[in-house]
């Protein structure tokens, strides 16, 4: 412009302090906080004609793209939105307060796990780090001497055995070192078994006691940070793993104690900027409506289904519509459709991880063709066109064969992997990458929708659904077929179809009545709302009302490495052969404070780098850990022999996403278990046990199908912090304490939801337990060396059982379901083309008289962290009995032949089955 012209302020005594100009409007604030709207502003008369005083007092206002107005009020400093602004009524109608939640208001304690961990393939061998030491004591127990024979005869290469023996080898070397040293730098969690750490823990405990006196006399240990108990080791990413795992970073470990940020409960806003915000006139601002109870107490959060949803009229409409479809369509499906569906196509350019050496990303043209089959079924084919030695070639995938599409964490690319059963066996998915996150999400959304369409899957998951979580925190759900647990031809678990549900969680637990809870990396507890979709899944593939904003916080770690030299002491000048002076845990990747980014664009930093004093092995007062050389075992004090030192830096990052989850406020959790109950009625309360992130055992009261969030916590006293808990179908509660031993809770019943006392159960010899899972009657535990154990000898009069039976090694996590089915996350699984770490596996051959099962079946992976099968109670016993009873000897013979075990003595008659089930029922009830 050329010159300024003066516009008089509304009142002479109070000048204008703030002004905001929109496309067609001008708003201002005077010094007395009054709000004014300029009348008559248009392109011919940009100065307008006069000021109109509006209701309300504001600190400031901000006008958005289509003249929408935002303001911060004077008295309560909340953010307001001007409602009713339309082209014909530019001044709007009323101010509406909007709830803007700061994520940081929740307590922040980051945690994470790593993708990869050293370990062996499945064998019968018990993995025992302290083996060598035991042997030197000439105290060899029979179970530690089991031969290391690979159990999965067909699939495991000799490498498996090698790996397991090398594990023992490490132990042998360890014998030379004093007992209190951590043996393997990569296996930091095993260091916990050492005396040093035990002392360290005690020291911690005392320190906490003195600095932070606990009001509760019963719970002296309340302030101990339990997260240390779950440290995961970190390993470099092998070339194999790169394609079959979800993360190439894989080094987010557990968060440490440090200052919290964001403490106020009611934020006092100072500024709002809506200048870039286009508000659709007619869409309600759903993104500002937060679930009730977020800011209030736990008791007030009720996920009750509104009366309208359960109302009879609604039920009747659903029922009548399905009857109508049956009546009008069932016998006429062969009729021609009046409207033909044309082929529909999406094309684009992506990158593909090519399937010949040298493996690398190459540009490809990708086409998705959708068509409607003669039966009205939609199906799609994905074509990938590439050049091979100047020759045009393509691969294609039928989307009805795709079992999962999963985002892969990759520093440089927005990539995702596509699996079919065949690709799962190979451990070699099709990997594609897009240039932007938005482009990837467009493809993911479309491909997911096409997969669901071709399988006719829509709406929320059923109550029987199997839930799993990847190391990226992504949530997947699969509908179990009845053939998954029983039948003449068991469905293999690489055939299972997984679809994604929005949100970010560390673990998830469910039961067979649709009650699902999850825990985030920041230990926040979430309850499932019954919705589906969320995240990148938008539009009609996502439910409208049950999706809420969700956030999570975890830590990224880097290491500062130094070497000692006689002149300057420790310095950042290493030997030429040394690792990077700033690196990842393995030392192979350079990671500086500047170049280390959050895991993906969805994450943003929420803290600065800080020194992590909670590294396992202990640190000195500056956070350093010392060792003789890289890579080695580190300890928290300098000795004469130490020439190198390192310290760990942590930085918190946060993800904001959405999904069918509502926060259960107040208490942050470490573990949960929900009773798998099959015959309870809808109104009856469901037993839900949990462990807080401090190690308290808690019992949630008032959990029903109608109100899955429950009403209040009941505290159950313990002598030490706990780390794992599980409640079986008949209220058998088992738990694992921090010292690695197991406990059984006596007399738990619906009338006495917290039981009466703990019975100590010694752990398997020389093993520290880390997880327990109780099915209908079976009790399985997992130790810190990855061994899976079955509790033998549980009888009606002795529900604690007698001994531990070894089942398998190579296990990271497990879930025992209401059919006593056993599913695990296996540490390592070798496929025909690649290796996967963190793989869903299913125990086959489990029968009433063979509760330990016979062998493993391999499903989706790697990169999986957690699975829960506790919802799947599809009554398989009847099917199983029919198929294996003498009535059908041919089939049962076939089955046994297939499994190569031929244990005929295990096939049961129906009578025997029901008898044993009766027996088991009594076990727990008395």
């Amino acid at each position, binding site marked *: 412009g050329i010159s300024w012209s003066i516009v008089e302020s509304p009142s002479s005594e109070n000048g204008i302090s703030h002004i905001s100009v929109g496309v067609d409007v001008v708003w201002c604030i005077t010094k007395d906080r009054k709000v004014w709207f300029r009348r008559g502003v248009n392109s011919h008369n940009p100065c307008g004609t006069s000021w109109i005083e509006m209701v309300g007092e504001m600190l400031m206002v901000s006008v958005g793209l289509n003249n929408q107005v935002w303001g911060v009020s004077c008295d309560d400093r909340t953010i307001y939105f001007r*409602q*009713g602004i*339309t082209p014909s009524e530019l001044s709007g109608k*009323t101010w*509406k307060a909007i709830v803007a939640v700061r994520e940081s208001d929740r307590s922040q304690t980051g945690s994470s796990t790593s993708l990869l961990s050293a370990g062996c393939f499945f064998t019968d061998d018990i993995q025992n780090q302290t083996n060598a030491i035991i042997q030197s004591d000439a105290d060899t127990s029979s179970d530690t001497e089991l031969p290391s024979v690979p159990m999965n005869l067909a699939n495991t290469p000799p490498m498996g055995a090698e790996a397991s023996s090398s594990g023992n080898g490490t132990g042998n070397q360890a014998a030379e070192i004093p007992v209190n040293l951590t043996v393997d730098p990569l296996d930091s969690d095993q260091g916990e078994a050492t005396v040093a750490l035990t002392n360290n823990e005690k020291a911690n405990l005392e320190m906490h006691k003195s600095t932070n006196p606990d009001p509760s006399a019963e719970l002296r240990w309340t302030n101990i940070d339990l997260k240390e108990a779950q440290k995961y080791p970190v390993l470099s990413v092998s070339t194999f793993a790169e394609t079959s795992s979800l993360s190439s970073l894989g080094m987010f470990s557990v968060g440490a104690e440090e200052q919290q940020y964001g403490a106020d409960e009611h934020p006092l806003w100072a500024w709002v900027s809506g200048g870039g915000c286009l508000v*659709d*006139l*007619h*869409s*309600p*601002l759903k993104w500002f*409506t937060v679930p009730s109870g977020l800011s209030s107490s736990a008791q007030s959060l009720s996920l009750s*289904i509104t009366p*309208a*949803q359960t*109302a*009879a*009229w*609604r039920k*009747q*409409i*659903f029922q*009548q*519509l*399905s*009857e*109508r*479809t049956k*009546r*009008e*369509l069932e*016998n*006429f499906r062969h*009729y*021609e*459709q*009046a*409207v033909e*569906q*044309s082929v529909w196509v999406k094309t684009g350019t992506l990158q593909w991880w090519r399937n010949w050496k040298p493996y690398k990303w190459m540009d490809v043209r990708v086409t998705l063709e959708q068509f409607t089959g003669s039966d009205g079924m939609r199906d799609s084919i994905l074509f990938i066109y590439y050049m091979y030695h100047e020759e045009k070639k393509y691969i294609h995938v039928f989307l009805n064969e795709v079992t999962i599409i999963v985002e892969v964490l990759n520093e440089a690319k927005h990539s995702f992997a596509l699996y079919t059963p065949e690709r799962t066996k190979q451990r070699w998915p099709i990997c594609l990458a897009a240039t932007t996150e938005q482009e990837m999400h467009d493809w993911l959304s479309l491909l997911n929708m096409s997969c669901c369409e071709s399988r006719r899957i*829509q*709406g*929320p998951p059923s109550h029987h659904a199997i839930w799993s979580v990847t190391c990226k925190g992504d949530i997947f759900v699969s509908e179990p077929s009845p053939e998954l647990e029983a039948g003449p031809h068991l469905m293999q678990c690489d055939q299972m179809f997984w679809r994604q549900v929005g949100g970010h969680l560390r673990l998830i637990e469910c039961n067979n009545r*649709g009650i699902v809870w999850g825990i985030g990396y920041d230990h926040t507890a979430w309850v499932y709302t*019954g*919705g*589906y979709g969320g995240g990148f899944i938008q*539009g*009609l593939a996502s*439910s*409208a*009302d*049950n999706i809420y904003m969700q956030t999570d916080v975890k830590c990224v770690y880097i290491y500062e490495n130094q070497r000692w030299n006689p002149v300057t002491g420790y310095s950042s000048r290493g030997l030429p052969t040394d690792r990077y002076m700033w690196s990842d845990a393995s030392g192979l990747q350079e990671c500086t404070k500047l170049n280390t980014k959050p895991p993906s664009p969805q994450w943003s930093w929420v803290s600065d780098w800080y020194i992590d004093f909670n590294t396992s092995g202990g640190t000195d007062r500056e956070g350093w850990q010392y060792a003789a050389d890289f890579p080695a075992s580190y300890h928290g004090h300098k000795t004469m022999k130490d020439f190198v030192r390192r310290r760990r830096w942590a930085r918190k990052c946060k993800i904001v996403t959405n999904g069918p989850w509502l926060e259960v406020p107040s208490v942050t959790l470490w573990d949960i278990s929900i009773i798998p109950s099959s015959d309870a009625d809808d109104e009856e309360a469901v037993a839900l046990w949990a462990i807080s992130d401090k190690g308290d055992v808690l019992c949630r009261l008032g959990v029903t199908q109608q109100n899955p969030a429950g009403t209040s916590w009941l505290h159950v006293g313990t002598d030490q912090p706990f780390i794992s808990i599980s409640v079986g179908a008949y209220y058998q509660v088992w738990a694992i304490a921090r010292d690695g031993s197991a406990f059984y809770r006596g007399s738990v019943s619906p009338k006495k939801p917290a039981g009466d006392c703990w019975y100590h159960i010694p752990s398997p010899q020389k093993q520290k337990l880390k997880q327990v899972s109780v099915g209908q009657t079976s009790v399985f535990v997992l130790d810190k060396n990855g061994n899976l154990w079955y509790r033998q000898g549980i009888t009606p009069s002795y529900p604690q059982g007698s001994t531990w039976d070894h089942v398998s090694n190579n296990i990271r996590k497990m879930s025992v379901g209401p059919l006593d089915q056993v599913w695990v996350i296996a540490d390592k699984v070798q496929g025909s083309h690649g290796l996967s770490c963190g793989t869903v596996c299913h125990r086959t051959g489990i029968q009433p008289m063979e509760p330990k099962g016979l062998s493993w079946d391999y499903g989706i992976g790697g990169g999986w962290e957690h699975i829960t099968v506790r919802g799947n109670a599809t009554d398989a016993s009847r099917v199983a009995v029919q198929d294996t009873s003498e009535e059908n000897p041919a089939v049962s013979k076939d089955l046994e032949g297939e499994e190569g075990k031929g244990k005929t003595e295990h096939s049961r008659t129906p009578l025997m089955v029901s008898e044993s089930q009766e027996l088991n029922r009594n076990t727990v009830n008395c």
Partner: protein
Amino acid sequence: MTDDKDVLRDVWFGRIPTCFTLYQDEITEREAEPYYLLLPRVSYLTLVTDKVKKHFQKVMRQEEATEIWFEYEGTPLKWHYPIGLLFDLHASNTALPWSITVHFKNFPEKDLLHCHSKDVIEAHFMACIKEADALKHKSQVINEMQKKDHKQLWMGLQNDKFEQFWAINRKLMEYPPEDSGFRYIPFRIYQATTERPFIQKLFRPIASGGQLHTLGDLLKDVCPGAIAPEDGEQKTQVMIHGIEPMLETPIQWLSEHMSYPDNFLHISIIPRPTD
């Protein structure tokens, strides 16, 4: 926990198995086989019967095959009513497939509108949507939309693309958060037993006291004959999309979930079968 979105799908994918037979007096060169088709309930007869027309034209002399029209048991079927409505109104409680007679001669001028091209159907369909939005949002939503959005609504219906249609129609089904429903509910009530084409009045989804109006409230208000007297037996059926929603069903919910693509609730009142 079934989601309300499933209702939208069920409504959209409703199909009526239909058997088309040529009227006996039509002059053909050879005998015409009946033609079987699954008709989308939410669409219009003349929009989805190209195949039927082609089938019967093959056996007709060229000059005889003029404008096609349909009749069921003596009643000419109005193409500008959605198919589901025609079926509910005239053929509920009869055996399937629905038997429709195809005519080429003697177009019943006083009963039917001419439909010379698909453009006529489109114009009628868009007019209905606009009328409905005038009732719901004072036409604000439909007027804010671009031409291509209007086209997408029509193409979605024409090509039976649920996602395509609902991506736009969603906006027509929203209402400002400070209100608890539409201004007025776009509905039409049809009675098989009267000559009057349909009843349409202004009716708000929320009572002055704030409580939700129900389907029963609507009928009591605009068509009291449809509901049974306090003590008497229910003599009629109130049908939408081939089902009988309970009279307690909130009318706002019905309008959002069970309107036809033209955004109207087409409610049929038919005599209850006596057996």
